């Protein structure tokens, strides 16, 4: 028969008590601490994930805003270009009209000046021509030509006076 030493039983009981005590005061807190640590890490991870997600959303938002700004900038640039073209066209048009007005005024002045000069020249030519004719006639008129002139010109004048007198006499009758 196998005899069981009491000391062995006692040692087993001691061991079991030790295990129970270790489980109660060492293993359980360690497990709790590990769980707590694990939870903390998980929470941190979730927090980081959330922040990462928020950062991504923020990045997307910024990209969208950047695109919108770019589009808006292009639209404004397009409008500015259109306005610049319009202003340029207006300035060119106004300058053209102004130049046309100046040209017309200058042409009108030139025309008036030419007309004036033409009139003066015409008068000068007429004066010179008549004076030359007078001088030529003066040189060529002699007594016999004077006789003819008096005869012809006076005949015409007296003839007119006679016709006029006849008409007046007829009206009185």
């Amino acid at each position, binding site marked *: 028969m196998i005899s069981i030493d009491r000391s062995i039983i006692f040692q087993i009981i001691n061991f079991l008590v030790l295990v129970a005590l270790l489980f109660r005061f060492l293993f359980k807190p360690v497990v709790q601490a590990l769980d707590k640590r694990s939870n903390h890490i998980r929470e941190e991870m979730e927090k980081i994930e959330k922040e990462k997600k928020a950062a991504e959303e923020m990045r997307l938002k910024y990209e969208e805003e950047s695109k919108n700004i770019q589009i808006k900038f292009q639209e404004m640039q397009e409008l500015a270009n259109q306005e610049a073209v319009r202003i340029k066209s207006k300035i060119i048009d106004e300058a053209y009209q102004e130049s046309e007005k100046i040209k017309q005024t200058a042409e009108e002045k030139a025309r008036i000046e030419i007309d004036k000069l033409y009139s003066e020249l015409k008068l000068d030519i*007429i004066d010179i021509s008549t004076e030359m004719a007078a001088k030529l006639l003066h040189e060529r008129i002699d007594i016999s030509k004077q006789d003819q002139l008096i005869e012809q010109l*006076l005949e015409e004048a007296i003839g007119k006076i006679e016709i006029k007198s006849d008409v007046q006499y007829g009206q009185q009758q």
Partner: protein
Amino acid sequence: MDSSNKEIVKFITPFPMTELQKNIVKNKLSRIGNIDQMIFQEEVDTSLIGGIIIIFGEMLIDCSLRTQLDKIKEGMI
């Protein structure tokens, strides 16, 4: 005949008038008036060039070449 009733007739010519010219003029004037009632005066104005101007009462008979030229000149202007 009383000379105070006579009418003065003035001849203006570029040269002194010859007798022939005076006769021509008097002959012409006799058609419009009585030359016996006229006293003739003569004046020389070389600017007339040719022809004659007769001042007869209020009547002016201008037969000068100067006037003819002036009329041509006015027509050209």
